[in-house]
């Protein structure tokens, strides 16, 4: 994975988005605030104590879309280049190759999450030092929970990308469908259908994006960030996302195992 240019591009974009919208834009807002109180409130949001919230608030939607793209490209490009054919006739069984692919993606997603947290920590500590503000950090336990939850959200979206790529044996359609789902369809269900249909209200509680947003909220994520909500509690959100991750993994593996490689 580390030799693929795609991996580095997506890592860079994810980190850049986090830095721009969690730190640079608020800092610009702080500099141009109408009054001192408003400025202090804005600056407080960028301090080390808000590292977890800043890092994962964008995960349900924006970083999630990037993670889905990573999964779809990783698998879809193998179909596009024809390299599945090359690898499957060497020696390992299909499921062994699949397991290695999933493991590599899981590690890559973890690297993305840790990068976002690490650079967020660096930026917030620079802000705190420059403004002589408090350097109070979240506890190690809270950080671990934040990183693990962020990883769970992104790896679930990544595995959806993998599943779609195996189903459609490419990457363009999986990316298109996946991103439309993340950024549009769940939004429509939550903000339009729920108000009109009882069924939609029940349905939203099991949607992956809604549960990702609820998990972020349970960890203190900014509720004004698109995708962050309080539809379900953190425990349910964790279990639902884990279930989705397992289901996506199993179905994708089944698709690879059963289908012809042409």
């Amino acid at each position: 994975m580390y030799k693929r240019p795609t991996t580095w591009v997506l890592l860079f974009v994810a980190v850049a988005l986090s830095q721009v919208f969690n730190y640079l834009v608020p800092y610009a807002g702080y500099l141009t605030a109408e009054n001192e109180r408003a400025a202090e409130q804005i600056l407080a949001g960028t301090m080390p104590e808000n590292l977890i919230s800043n890092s994962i608030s964008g995960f349900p939607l924006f970083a999630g879309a990037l993670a889905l793209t990573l999964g779809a490209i990783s698998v879809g490009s193998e179909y596009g280049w024809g390299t599945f054919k090359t690898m499957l006739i060497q020696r390992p069984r299909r499921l062994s190759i699949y397991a290695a692919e999933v493991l590599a993606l899981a590690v890559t997603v973890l690297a993305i999450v840790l990068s976002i947290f690490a650079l967020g920590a660096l930026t917030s500590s620079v802000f705190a030092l420059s403004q002589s503000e408090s350097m109070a950090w979240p506890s190690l336990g809270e950080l671990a929970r934040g990183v693990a939850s962020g990883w769970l959200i992104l790896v679930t979206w990544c595995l959806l990308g993998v599943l779609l790529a195996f189903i459609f044996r490419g990457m363009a359609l999986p990316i298109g469908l996946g991103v439309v789902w993340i950024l549009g369809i769940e939004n429509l269900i939550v903000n339009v259908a729920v108000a009109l249909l009882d069924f939609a209200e029940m349905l939203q509680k099991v949607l992956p994006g809604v549960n990702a947003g609820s998990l972020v909220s349970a960890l203190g994520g900014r509720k004004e960030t698109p995708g962050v909500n309080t539809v379900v509690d953190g425990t349910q959100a964790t279990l639902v996302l884990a279930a989705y991750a397992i289901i996506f993994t199993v179905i994708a593996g089944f698709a690879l195992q059963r289908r012809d490689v042409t």
Partner: protein
Amino acid sequence: MSKVKRTETHTQTEARRKVMNEDSLLETRNLTKRYGPRIVAVDRVSLTVRRGEVYGFLGPNGAGKTTTLRMLLGLIRPTSGMASVLGRPPGDPGGLARVGALVEAPAFYPYLSGRDNLRVIARYANAPKKRIEAALDLVDLVDRARDKFATYSLGMKQRLGVAATLLKDPELLILDEPTNGLDPAGMADMRALIRRLGSGERTVLLSSHLLGEVEQICDRVGVISQGRLIAESTVEELRGGSALLVAATPLDRARERVEQLLGAERVDVLDGTLRLEADPTSSGRINRELVKAGVEVTELRRIERTLEEVFLEMTNQKGESNVE
């Protein structure tokens, strides 16, 4: 219609071993692949590849060659029938460990160099790294091994594909159109390489539609057309014995008389001449009979049929076998 499962029962394994000749490295029995109710890509193909031979798998485009090879490698699941590769089901890791294959266009990671691509494949194949340099040297790619695969010409890509097949030092090589994209010098080099690889104990299954190439390097050939194996024999047997060429005027009368003598099925008209399936020793009698019939014979000589002629004749019959 039964399906071939990836894992076999004990009964199926024993059945596979019984039908396998000890000399056979690869065998299929009624191997079939259907796509939906109307498309039969491979239709009850039964072929055998013996140890140490170079087997040519011939057929026009779309005949089912690549589909058959993909089934043998476990990439495609057969609809019915049986296949055995080195005594194992297709796609079995134990079998694949001893098979080197290049199917259709060589597929590698464009962002990796040639050498790095072989390193990846060597890891998958559990092949020793020292074989990478030997394989690159054999296909004359050492100088370009550090360049990205995306920068390779078609011929270089093809050669890297062949290099990849050699990493496992395989007992069986399966090559699908290996001279594709090569210039004439490259094709000659590839043929020499295949001959060298096919010598000794190594077995080669070579799929091609270049008949001259097959004629030069293959010991036995199987001809597939519209999904069916319509002939399987040595090149010499397929070409048949020699034939007679007769140029005569008027041609129609000559044809009529010769058909009376030999039978219509043994007479063919090609390029304004008659081709007769007849022993050369009968040429005198044929000449006499033609003259008696008022035919002017301008040419009468022995010819040997090329594999191309045999092939075109066979495949123009729309899959009906002309060779028992």
